[in-house]
């Protein structure tokens, strides 16, 4: 075992700013545990008080959860670490960032242990959180669950954040999910169209969905859409427009696509979540799954812009046409540009177009050709720090999100 301590200065903390109070390196699991024990006794956690004497400012270890990040590459780990550091004061947790390297070499571990502290207010003790950045090389990198399990603070919930493309169906994932209470992913960052991974995620939610110990799943892609959902829902708040909900005839979602991306190159998770959410809330079931449409004389990709997909939902005898369509846009590929709803009710018609505009979502509604006042919903793009904070604050499963996820997967289920 080899460990090196870094003696850190007794900097006076500034309220709200994360401050590194302890830093050490080691190369074994036993070493990590020994260093963690030192964190809370370290002299570097003592600062000079008003009287000039050493003053202990950390009153208690403040952990509310275990946050485990599986980073397939060290650069993903570094990005996740930057996000989590911003949350140290708000959501103190034991954080483990585990990356793999050098898969064909001999087994080795390199762990960097830190205490990140924050002063919530001038007269309070600092709240500190433990931060373990761990790289596993060789064979050890293929047994991440065995490394993580002994380092978890028992009795605290385990949130597993898997940035990038999580290998959800693999043995490694199964082992990791067995010790997790919540899986956090960002479906909009999955490679390709993301549809295969959506199927696996839906299966996971189904398998881990019953009773005590069920796995909660948070997808940043879906959390980002909450203002869109409010905007769409607001169209039906007026009592006289609410009956149109049982007369919806078409749902169209247009997404940003870049020319030349190829038919399967644009991630479709966000537009699909919109349709999945509407279908699940309105009790619509899949009559004909979404399938690519090839217009006459065009390539399968729909003039190389992206996939044009159509399908059909139904409720009782009513059929609802669904289309997910690409649209050339400078926005990142896969970004939702518009959600359009058409509805009929006793001879009257309603058209709702919800569209993104800078930091807002606009709702344009027309009843029998008569325009309603335009409504604007503030929807600034939320950072990963905000998304992770919201995820950590949520408790248990979100049944609405689960239903939307399952409906979206059902819409694109392969035959």
């Amino acid at each position, binding site marked *: 075992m080899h460990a090196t301590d870094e003696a850190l200065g007794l900097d006076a903390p500034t309220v709200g700013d994360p401050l590194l109070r302890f830093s050490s390196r080691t190369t074994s699991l036993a070493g990590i545990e020994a260093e963690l024990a030192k964190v809370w006794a370290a002299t570097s956690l003592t600062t000079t008080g008003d009287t000039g004497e050493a003053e202990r400012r950390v009153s208690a270890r403040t952990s509310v959860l275990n946050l485990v990040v599986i980073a397939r590459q060290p650069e993903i780990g570094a990005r996740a670490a930057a996000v989590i550091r911003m949350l140290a*004061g708000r959501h103190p947790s034991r954080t483990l960032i585990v990356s793999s390297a050098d898969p064909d070499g001999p087994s080795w571990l390199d762990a960097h242990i830190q205490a990140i502290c924050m002063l919530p207010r001038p007269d309070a003790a600092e709240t500190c959180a433990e931060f373990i950045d761990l790289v596993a090389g060789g064979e050890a990198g293929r047994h991440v669950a065995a490394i993580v399990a002994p380092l978890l603070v028992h009795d605290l919930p385990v949130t597993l954040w898997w940035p990038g493309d999580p290998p959800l169906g693999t043995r490694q994932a199964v082992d990791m999910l067995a010790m997790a209470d919540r899986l956090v992913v960002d479906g909009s960052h999955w490679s390709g169209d993301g549809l295969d991974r959506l199927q696996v995620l839906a299966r996971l939610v189904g398998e881990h969905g019953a009773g005590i110990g069920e796995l909660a799943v948070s997808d940043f892609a879906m959390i980002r859409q909450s203002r869109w959902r409010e*905007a769409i829902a607001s169209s039906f708040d007026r*009592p*006289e427009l609410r009956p149109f909900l049982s007369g919806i005839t078409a749902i169209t979602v247009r997404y940003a696509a870049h020319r030349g991306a190829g038919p399967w190159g644009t991630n479709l998770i966000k537009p699909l979540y919109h349709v999945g959410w509407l279908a699940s809330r309105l009790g619509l079931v899949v009559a004909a799954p979404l399938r690519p449409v090839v217009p006459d004389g065009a390539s399968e990709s729909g003039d190389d812009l992206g996939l044009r997909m159509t399908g059909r939902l139904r409720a009782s005898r009513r059929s609802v046409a669904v289309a997910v369509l690409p649209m050339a846009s400078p926005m990142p590929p896969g970004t939702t540009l518009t959600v359009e709803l058409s509805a009929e009710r006793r001879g009257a018609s309603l058209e709702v177009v919800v569209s993104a505009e800078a930091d807002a979502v606009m709702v344009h509604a027309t009843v029998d050709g008569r325009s309603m006042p335009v409504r*604007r919903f503030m929807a600034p793009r939320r950072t990963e720090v905000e998304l992770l904070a919201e995820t950590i*604050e949520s408790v248990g499963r979100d049944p609405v999100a689960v239903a939307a996820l399952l409906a979206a997967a059902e819409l694109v289920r392969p035959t």
Partner: protein
Amino acid sequence: MARTGGPATTPPRTIREERIERIGRRRRSVRHDVNPLREGLRLERVPDPHVMVLFGATGDLSHRKVFPALAQLWRTNLLPQDWQLVAVGRRPHDDATFRAEITASLEQYSRVRLESDVAAQFLGRISYHQGDFGDDEAFDRLAVRLDAMDAELGTQGDRLFYLATQSSAFPQIVAQLGRTGLDHELHGGGWRRIVIEKPFGRDLDSARKLNREVGRVFRESQVYRIDHYLGKETVRNLMVFRFGNGIFEPLWNRRYVDHVQITMAESLGVEERGSFYEETGATRDVVQNHLLQLLTLVAMEPPATFDADALRDEKVKVLRAIPEFGAADVAANVVRGQYGPGWVEAKPVQGYRAETAVDAQSETETFMATRLQIDDWRWSGVPFYLRAGKRLPKRATEIAIQFKGVPHRLFRDSAVDPQPNLLAIRIQPDEGILLRFGSKVPGLGLDIRTVTMDFTYGSAFSVDSPDAYETLLLDAMLGDASLFTRADEVEAAWAIATPIVDSWVNGPAPDFPNYVAGTWGPNAADTLIERDGRHWRRI
């Protein structure tokens, strides 16, 4: 007489048969009273489109609190699209000049700065209606105007009246609303609600009189009496803390609790409110409402449901279980004080009698402390100490539950006896909860030191808390009266406060000033608690 010759009819025997006989085979139509797309969103129900009528729109309260709260609700899309506000005031304004005034107030008092286009949208929904509250013609015009708005906006007669005026104007406005029929709820829709600001009366008789006057026009279910303290996030969390956690409730009674302290300390003086405070004093200003509300939330039994009346029934039971004081009880259990000059927050401050618009011989109390008993099964014998004051060393509102000590002194060799456990709920500032317990000092000996577990709201939740007025306005629009006080509740609270104030009026002149600004009140306040073998918690 039974028909003959036809098929014999069998009387219905099952629930289904009975239902079909009564209402036929009709399928129930799909419910359209809820919006299924709202499930899981911030609000599962949004207020109906309505017109809000704000009386006292040019006043300080409207500018500081009501308009910023409404603007914030508008900004966050929590108000319906077809919402409109008619601002009623005496001062001469047209829509443009009044909106300019609101714009300035929003810039000064908004919790979050409004984007310019959002501010323009919000202001566009405000119109001004000038009129004196005694002017029949002004109210007749208002009624016509509101009917026209209903027709134009499709607000279906839904109206929220908000009385942000001096309390002396409440009866007049309520009577005018009754005279013009603006209180009448329409059949099949068209709700009418009235929000009334504090103070609701200045003693038991005036509160009863006001309740009668309001009750002549509005039904109790239409009346929303505001105590903005109940809209505060931490006060609402108090109910969650008590009834959403299993471990505290078994300890929450006379068997384990030694006493309870509720403190509301302000470092500020009366500022520009001298004339108001002269007529009010600490007891009427904060004890009768805020402190007694906190007491009821601490002491009440768990309600059967979380609906408004179940909650308020339990609170009223607590207030009624507090014995009313006679003059001798007041002398023994109440301390009043008034601050003299001193130093607060490192600045010299003048005494109360030297404040603007304050009588140089004023007998108004700026500090009040009392010892109350709740004569019920749960709390019998547990004193509740309440104190509130101005120009105290710091601003802090806190509820402290002091538990009893251990029954047997086991650690005789410890240098210090372990202090009894304490649970402190900080309402403001630094909202949070602190639990104090004893812990062994590391080493070969067996010394015990008191340590604390300190939960700070702000460090656990990154979400920005809404202002109390945002919460309460939205609740009134949604028709949820849980956080508003009911007529009997207000009267029960006055029944406790009135004998105290009356005994001061009838008693000898107090020896004021009796505490130095920047201290924790008069010495008598310490004596009040220390004669019971207890002491005020150092905050």
